């Protein structure tokens, strides 16, 4: 059964979804549109850091989209069906990519419309494609209203600045208490202590610091008991450093001051970043070398898509990370991209001393799975680690950073795996979640690859070996 407009109307959850889908019917919103084996799929740049991947089965109108929408089908799925039904846009014939195959192998089967239960209220009016053609009333710009809004924004900003500074004063007192009582004592009651101050910082509109302190107990508990007190010193030391840097931002270089503001919790919206003419932009081919997902205490899942810039080193950043936050309740555990995907895009980097976080500002072509190896620099692990130390000196609260390496080996000591550089006797402990998955690497000798170092553990992401490629 092929897709028809009537069928799309029947599937649409509400009129608003159809209206939103209509706005996505422009082929320019879809860098990729393809078909094959009774399926159509595409990529659509939405408000997230990574484009959404959408697939629709023509036979039974089954669909899947990587966006976090709670509407089923979402506007992206509806738009893809719509374009297909109208046949107004060309879909390139292609072999079914892996992410589509993954969906196929996991789908539950034909979806049947929910049957109406007895006593159910009168059905809602059926969404109609015709109604989406009614032009929206144009919002006439009102200069006075805009002036009022700008004034309100400025007032809010000042209020927030004051609240943050008051929160930092509270934080200082709390930190002083922990120093007086000692880190051994802090570790014993870290969960309660951190929760309390994190809540106060949320009230003080400093969500960045709040999140850092909220996540601290989890971070400490992943470490061996003996390492926790010194890790607590490291973490609380960074919090104190951020707090000081924020207060004395005017004395700092511009980029470091921007880092401090971001660490405290001032966000830069995607639109603001894309409109920032001074933001660092890099138009290049990028490879996805890791996709990490982590549930946060605020019921959001943080999905990090780590990219490596292909080509030779030119002094510009070789790596970037796209970060998406999706509600845990949507069940989405991964971003739109798969490890190995190659993306031809322009990235805009958030202002930072060590630019890492970015947004896709222009997608030149849809992502393609590539079997080519990464163009890693000819550096040993110890060289990469030295670069990390240099970066740490520039940005003292630096978080996770990619470390490429050549000729390292995975070694085992008890149950713990290490990435080891024989030449310089540097051993980075692998993340405990990789104990089983990375174990086969302990038998393959030397490996080249890349991973993520967070100052405590190394998450191996990609390794080239004589047995082929290993991926996280």
């Amino acid at each position, binding site marked *: 059964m092929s897709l028809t407009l009537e069928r799309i109307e029947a599937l649409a959850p509400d009129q608003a979804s159809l209206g939103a889908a209509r706005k996505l019917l422009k082929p320019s919103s879809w860098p990729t549109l393809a078909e094959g084996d*009774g399926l159509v799929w595409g990529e659509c740049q939405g408000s997230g850091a990574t484009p959404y991947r959408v697939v629709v*089965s023509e*036979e*039974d109108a*089954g669909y899947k989209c990587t966006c976090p929408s709670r509407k089923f089908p979402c506007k992206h799925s509806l738009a893809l069906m719509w374009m297909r039904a109208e046949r107004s846009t060309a879909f390139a014939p292609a072999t079914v990519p892996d992410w589509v*195959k*993954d969906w*196929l*192998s*996991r*789908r*539950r*089967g034909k979806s049947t419309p929910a049957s109406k239960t007895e006593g159910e209220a009168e059905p809602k009016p059926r969404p109609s494609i015709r109604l989406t053609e009614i032009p929206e009333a144009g919002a006439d710009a009102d200069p006075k209203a805009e002036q009022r809004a700008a004034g309100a924004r400025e007032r809010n900003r000042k209020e927030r600045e004051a609240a943050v500074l008051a929160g930092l004063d509270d934080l*200082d007192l709390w*930190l*002083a208490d922990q*120093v*007086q*009582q*000692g*880190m*051994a*004592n802090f570790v014993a009651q870290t969960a309660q202590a951190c929760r309390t101050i994190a809540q106060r910082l949320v009230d003080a509109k400093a969500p960045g610091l709040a999140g850092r302190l909220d996540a601290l107990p989890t971070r400490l508990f992943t470490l061996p008991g003996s390492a926790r*007190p*010194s890790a607590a*010193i*490291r*973490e*609380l*030391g*960074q919090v*104190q*450093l951020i707090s*000081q840097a924020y207060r004395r931002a005017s004395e700092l270089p511009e980029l470091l001051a921007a880092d401090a503001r971001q660490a405290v919790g001032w966000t830069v919206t995607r639109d603001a970043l894309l409109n920032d003419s001074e933001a660092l932009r890099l138009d290049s081919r990028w490879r996805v070398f890791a996709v990490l997902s982590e549930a946060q205490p605020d019921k959001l899942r943080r999905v990090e898509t780590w990219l490596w810039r292909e080509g030779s080193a030119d002094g510009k950043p070789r790596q970037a990370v796209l970060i998406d936050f999706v509600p845990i309740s949507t069940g989405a555990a991964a971003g739109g991209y798969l490890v190995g995907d190659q993306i031809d895009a322009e990235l805009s980097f958030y202002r930072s001393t060590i630019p890492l976080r970015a947004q896709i500002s222009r997608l030149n072509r849809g992502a393609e799975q590539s079997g080519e190896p990464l163009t890693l620099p000819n550096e040993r692990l110890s060289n990469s680690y030295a670069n990390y*130390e240099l970066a*740490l000196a520039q940005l*003292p609260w630096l978080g996770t950073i990619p470390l490429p390496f050549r000729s390292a080996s995975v*070694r*085992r*000591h*008890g149950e*713990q795996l*290490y990435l*080891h550089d024989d030449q310089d*006797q*540097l*051993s*980075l*402990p692998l993340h405990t979640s990789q104990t*089983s*998955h990375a*174990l*086969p690497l*302990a*038998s*393959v000798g030397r490996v080249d690859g890349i991973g993520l170092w967070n*100052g405590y553990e190394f998450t191996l992401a990609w390794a080239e070996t004589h*047995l*082929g490629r*290993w991926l996280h």
Partner: protein
Amino acid sequence: MNTTSLRAKVLPSLLAGTSRNPLPGELIRPSNSSSDGALEILSLMGQALRFERPSTPDSFIIEPEIEDERRIVADALRRPLIRLLTAKNATEHPARALARTFDRLRLRPHPFDLPLIDAFVRSNAEKLGSTAQHWADRQKPEAETQSYFDPELLDESNWAQATLSRRVAYVEQRRRDDADAARALLESTWAQEEADARFRLLQALQTGLGTADQPFLNTLEKDRAPRVRALAARFLARLGAGGENPALRGCLERIKQGKSGLLRKRTALELELPANVKDQAASRWILQTFTDVSFTELASALKVTNQELIESAAKDEPLLLALALITTNDQRLDLLELLVAHLPNAWERIFESGLATLGTMTESERQRWEETIVHPYRKDLPTSYFLWDWLHRVTDAAAPRSVMSILLKMELLMKVPERERGGGPWLEVIAAICPAPQRDELREQLAEFDQSQTVIPLALLDILDGMEKDRTHV
């Protein structure tokens, strides 16, 4: 001041608390008038710790070198394999078919995939090569691990180092060629075998069992494992050398002998079920009661020949089931063929009994056994999923081509009632038992189904084809 002296002077205070262990006064440099300088020391110490490199362990474990002669499965098949073996809603049938194919084609999974398909590897380690076995055994104490020797061909010099299933198959093969030499092989390693290995190897002695085996069996009467002692006693009883088989006495007590026929009186046998065994439990009771009795032993105790025993039981379905189970246990497929002429629904009756294994039958014997119990159904194969599910579990083999031909010709899958067809399981089990030459025909029939139901079966057929093609290109 360097990091070491900072650490020595400051760390004890920060760990124990400055209220108990004040910071050294000379280090305190407050950043402003309202600060006591402790927080500045905290951030300085924290940053100094961040620059400390992780410590390298004194030594690392030397990983064992596992010799694995098998070829690694083609790269193109790795992702589909992982996808199939980790599919949430898949039954165990695709995994069984894949493990069999890995073993038959002497292929092995890629070492990097072992953690991703861990459950599959642990369930089928013996069929996946020595690297996979080593992986499956990684958490076992060293004393419990097996040999990881997996050569292509076994002989008398290396058979003892191979995996247990291959050793059993080898001994069985040797029993067919030279029963005494096979027994001598067993005797040579018997003292070093684990209980499970002793039991499974002893089962292989059933092939070509003769009086020459009696001295060896006599030595097993004092074996530490009760099941080995019981099996040896059963073999001895079969040879007429042991004491009276208590299981035989129990069976004979339940078999009533009579005469039937008008012109020519023939012996008629009937199995009397205990009064407390209800109808639905009868088959299971029969399996338990007759499992330790051999066909020849029973015939001789009833003073009839093997054929006469079948003829005499022809009118009594419970006794026919008992005999079907005994012939299966004895691997007497010639007698089973005679028997199913009187018990055309042997398949369903044996399924009801809960038979879980075909012992040491080879793959071709298991396929012949399947053919024997399925053929009486002719073109009216049953449409119960549970029967096919059980058949695949118990035979662990592809269906004989003749069985698959009937299945495809009668379009069995289309005849399964919609409510019973459910999702994938029906299609998965049929795909898993489909012999290679009939896969295309099955694909044509699968095309009639909803796409969502055929994802796993079709993926399985493609992977099996891919593995076979990959192997033939070597």
